[in-house]
């Protein structure tokens, strides 16, 4: 116990994962400079273990049926932001014609960032490629023109500046996962670091 520590007033109406605190603004966290990718040069590719490539341009992406998820964000650096509004395309739509027996994926971003996810966490309405935030184009510092959104895992899994998904038969660690962060990253089980 921390002698004399009281903390902020408890809010019984908000349910947060363990160890998280509520923030109203939108902090930025990334490992390097913000890549600047114009919409007309952005491209997204799903590549399977057999080498088949499925590619979308910006125009093709925004022409797909869109959804407007409102979700809670949980960052491993402890902040949570509730009820954020996005617009984008469900990965169920993008994977509809992809044939693969692989169970794992590596997400690749412009700028070289990577993060790994099981395929099942990207499907069934759990993940989107989003291009709008709060009614506007997604700003570059928050991952624009397009980022991945996988809100049931810590936010580092929601790769910014996303450019592709590589299907993998075996799980491999991505960028943060290879420097001490948890392989899966479930905020409700507080899987922040390796060994959690």
């Amino acid at each position: 116990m921390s002698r004399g520590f009281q903390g902020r007033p408890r809010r019984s109406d908000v349910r947060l994962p363990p160890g998280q605190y509520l923030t109203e603004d939108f902090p930025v966290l990334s490992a390097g400079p913000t890549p600047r990718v114009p919409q007309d040069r952005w491209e997204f590719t799903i590549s399977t273990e057999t080498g088949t490539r499925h590619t979308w341009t910006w125009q093709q992406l925004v022409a797909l049926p869109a959804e407007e998820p409102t979700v809670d964000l949980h960052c491993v650096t402890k902040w949570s932001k509730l009820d954020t509004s996005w617009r984008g395309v469900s990965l169920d739509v993008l994977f509809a014609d992809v044939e693969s027996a692989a169970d794992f994926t590596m997400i690749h971003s412009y700028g070289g960032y990577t993060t790994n996810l099981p395929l099942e966490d990207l499907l069934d309405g759990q993940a989107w490629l989003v291009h709008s935030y709060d009614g506007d184009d997604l700003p570059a510092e928050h991952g624009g023109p397009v980022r991945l959104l996988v809100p049931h895992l810590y936010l580092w899994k929601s790769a910014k500046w996303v450019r592709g998904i590589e299907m993998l038969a075996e799980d491999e660690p991505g960028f943060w996962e290879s420097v001490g962060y948890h392989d899966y990253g479930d905020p409700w089980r507080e899987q922040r670091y390796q060994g959690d």
Partner: protein
Amino acid sequence: MATLRERRAESPSAVTLAFDVPGWPGHLAGQHVDVRLTAEDGYRAQRSYSIASAPGGEGLELTVQRVDDGEVSPYLTDALEAGDPVELRGPVGGWFVWRPGDPSPVLLVGGGSGIVPLMAMVRTRRASGATAPFRLVYSVRTPADRLYVPELPGATVLYTRTAPPGEPRAPGRLTRADLAAVPPSDCFVCGPTGFVEAAADLLVDLGHDPARIRTERFGPTGG
């Protein structure tokens, strides 16, 4: 579990806290720890703080900037007393780190309390006798906001609001000229989000390899 050994004021709003941590495994310059506080009713709050000290001995130092409406930092800077226990988790982070065996030139760019992990790098270089060339550009609002003054005689200090008497550079934000004429280096940039975005963009613009620019940002909601 850590025990506060001593506290030192670094500026009117920042305090260095030296902790004894039995069994501390050591750390790399640039890593951080999670500090976890527990209230009487079991409520817990945790935040990450960069380690300021070089590795060595069973302990470490944090420098904590007081965030006036923060939940954790005012407790650490105002209420925590020598002998008090604190729950620490770490060291954490394997990307924003400098290793003394690396001979590459290094450029450190710090804004405000973003100097803390960079100070750990400067101290680690000094303690290890490493000879990699280091250059430090340190941006603060006013002279009173400077941390670690006696230890950073060679730093280029930029003042954004108020400069000390005799300072030739007019107060203002970091510009391209402030970062010019730096040879290719491993760049470490740490500070508030706006500062890091601006500094990293300038470095890319000046021709630095984006893959050699490592950033660590903190938002205004820290604390």
